[in-house]
């Protein structure tokens, strides 16, 4: 079923948009009401089309019906703008399965732009989320935000200006993020507490950190098995404009790919460069400033089975955004020197050491030409720095590709 909506409402564009810091724009209340009513009354299988135009909204939209497609005329043509939003913590909140959203933009939401909670078979493609004022601490936290979802395809999206992560996949299973662009967010793309994610053919640039693979404590599901490949991760040196207390607050400006507390992560065939702190950072929860009073006993804070191979590294590590690291760089590598491409905070699980070393299947294994690693000795207070590659000359089994459910994969092919 197809509903061609808003034919009559599509005409008036807002004239007030030019006065930028003036009073908030007037909302298209009729449009808003009609669209929200359609979302409430939608039936499975329905395609709701939103025509081209800039639509001004002042409260959240939400969808709770499964099997619905929300479709615009293009990410630069159909624009839902939430500047001056009065209520709701996001632009669109979806609590439904078999959901597709495509070809539209959500701009200037107060909180998150698109949040999808708890559904299966989610396709988000050619959607743009943006804070049009550029990077700012008062921007909403997340652009594209599926959480506790399963079978998720994020394809060809653009995420700009989020005060946390542009594309943030949390506590999910079976996820593909591809062909997307994340720019000028604190974190470009973040995969958190997720089991089975493929992140490829994306561009992350101008963020504080490009691509993050994190595990947070005290959540129902620890994540593992993420592949990050064929991405261009470049020049993510933006000053961190996130909020203390959030996971991204600990990201130093100038971070390419960051792994924190996650296991089984494979980083390969990427172009990663122009990062002042490091092209790749591998770290534990202990480096985020929290103690074990903040973690449930079963939390594993150690990054294990990390496989880095065949990437093309550009310059990096010349001016780290962290006092200890600055001092360390100066002392060990000199004023004009640089940190190696891969920076590791050096925390290992003492219970898992065999003869003082991590067994190969849990190690950080590097097979990346000339690229080196620096162990900055976080546990020892940054004293016994090491660039010894010996413990890292190992191989890990390649991770399997994420296989999206057939229907979803097929839908993806049309893109």
């Amino acid at each position, binding site marked *: 079923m197809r509903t061609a909506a808003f034919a009559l409402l599509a005409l008036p564009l807002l004239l007030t948009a030019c006065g930028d810091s003036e009073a908030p724009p007037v909302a298209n209340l009729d449009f808003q009401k009609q669209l929200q009513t359609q979302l409430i009354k939608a039936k499975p299988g329905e395609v709701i089309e939103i025509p081209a135009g800039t639509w001004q909204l002042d409260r*959240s939209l939400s969808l709770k019906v499964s099997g619905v497609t929300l479709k615009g005329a293009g990410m630069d043509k159909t624009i839902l703008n939430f500047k001056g*939003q009065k209520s709701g913590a996001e632009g669109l909140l979806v*609590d439904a399965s078999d959901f597709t959203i495509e070809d539209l933009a959500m701009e200037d939401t107060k909180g998150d732009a698109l949040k999808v909670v708890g559904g299966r078979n989610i396709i988000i493609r050619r959607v743009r989320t943006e804070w049009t004022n550029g990077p700012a*601490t008062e921007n909403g936290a997340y652009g594209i935000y599926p959480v506790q979802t399963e079978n998720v395809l994020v394809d060809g999206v653009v995420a700009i200006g989020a005060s946390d992560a542009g594309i943030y996949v949390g506590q999910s299973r079976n996820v593909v993020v591809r062909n997307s662009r994340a720019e000028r967010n604190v974190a470009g793309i973040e995969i958190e507490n997720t089991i089975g994610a493929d992140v490829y053919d994306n561009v992350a640039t101008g963020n504080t950190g490009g691509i993050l693979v994190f595990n947070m404590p005290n959540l129902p599901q620890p994540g593992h098995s993420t592949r990050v490949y064929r991405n261009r991760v470049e020049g993510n040196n933006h000053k961190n404009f996130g909020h203390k207390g959030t996971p991204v607050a600990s990201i130093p400006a100038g971070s390419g790919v960051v792994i924190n507390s996650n296991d089984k992560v494979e980083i390969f065939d990427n172009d990663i460069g122009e990062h002042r702190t490091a092209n790749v950072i591998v770290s534990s929860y202990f480096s985020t400033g929290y103690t074990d009073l903040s973690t449930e006993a079963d939390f594993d804070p150690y990054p294990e089975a990390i496989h880095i191979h065949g990437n093309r590294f550009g310059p990096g590590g010349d001016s780290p955004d962290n006092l200890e690291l600055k001092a360390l760089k100066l002392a060990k590598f000199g004023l004009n020197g640089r940190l190696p491409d891969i920076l590791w905070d050096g925390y290992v699980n003492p219970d898992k050491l065999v003869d003082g070393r991590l067994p190969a299947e849990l190690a950080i294994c590097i097979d990346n030409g000339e690229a080196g690693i620096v162990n900055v000795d976080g546990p020892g207070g940054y004293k016994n720095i090491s660039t010894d590659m010996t413990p890292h000359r190992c191989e890990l089994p390649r991770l399997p590709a994420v296989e999206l459910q057939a229907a979803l994969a097929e839908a993806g092919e049309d893109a």
Partner: protein
Amino acid sequence: MRAGWLLLATLFLGACEQQRAPLYLPSGEDYPDKLSTWGVLQQRGGQLQPAAGVLPYDLNTPLFTDYAHKLRTVWMPEGRSAQYAEAQFDYPVGTLLSKTFYYPRDAQGRLLRSEQHGVEALRLDRVRLLETRILLRQEQGWVALPYVWDEAQRDATLDWAGASFDLQLQDATGEVLAVDYQVPDANQCAGCHEQQAGKGVQPLGPKARHLNRDYVYADGAVNQLQRWQAEGLLQGVPADLAGVPRNALWGAPREGESLEHQARSYLDANCSHCHNPEGPGRTSGLYLDPATPLGIAYGLCKQPVAAGKGSGDRLVDIHPGAPEKSVLSFRLHSTDPSIMMPELGRSTSHREGLEVIDRWIASLDGEC
């Protein structure tokens, strides 16, 4: 004005005389467009009150919604009753719960900011009615229906997409509080009342721990659970009420109701419908339901997960001894839609509620 009252009187006269039972709608989607059609509330003698056979009720500690007062009612079809269970009653098909949101107004017509007190009938010239939410138990489950009152206060109309009102409230000192009152749309209703999509809407207020209190009925004060049982609305209430959970009585804690119990009752009523292991707030790992002990999962020294600017640059949800270092307090204070908790249902902050929460956090010992 007088003509209006006359019209009003005529409109409702018929209904009063007939005294028909409220609408029984066990199935189907033929929901009436007008609230009056349900026959749950009636206007009579310049008052809005529960119709015959419809029982008003009140909660121990209620949800804060911009200082709105609430008239709550329950009705069940003749001969049917709910089955008591500690966590959630099993209500019979046809049950109608109504909650009318209003503000008291003074003789000059100004809306007043005051804490809720239970009343059975509303003098229409001394209240501003905003919305009435109907929860209807049908064969396939509960349905949430938002009705918005018209300006003339004659009737309310079903509005799936919600509404908003710009209001000004005046307190006893003459201070004026601006309220951007939001009537939720049907999805937002479900946002609190449905734990997860497909699991169905559930009532939140009329549960044992919230209802377990006295109510002053026309014939005197009686515990509500016992009254419901006596009226045939509820079966299986434990003979000894001492075994029934009971939240603290808001604003006037009973003897023995500790500060912690008051705070947890408040967080229960205001947060736990989302923040529990099944609800929409589960993704944060923060559970503020009564079953969760005071530990990391209840926020103690817990780092926020995806709070974004909701963290307020604070490192943990509850920092013992320090409300000013606690995300929980920050988000309860805020009125920014992207920061504030609860996410819906208020545009102002609840001073009295915050006072209790902050005092409680300040009273906690420990470090993070």
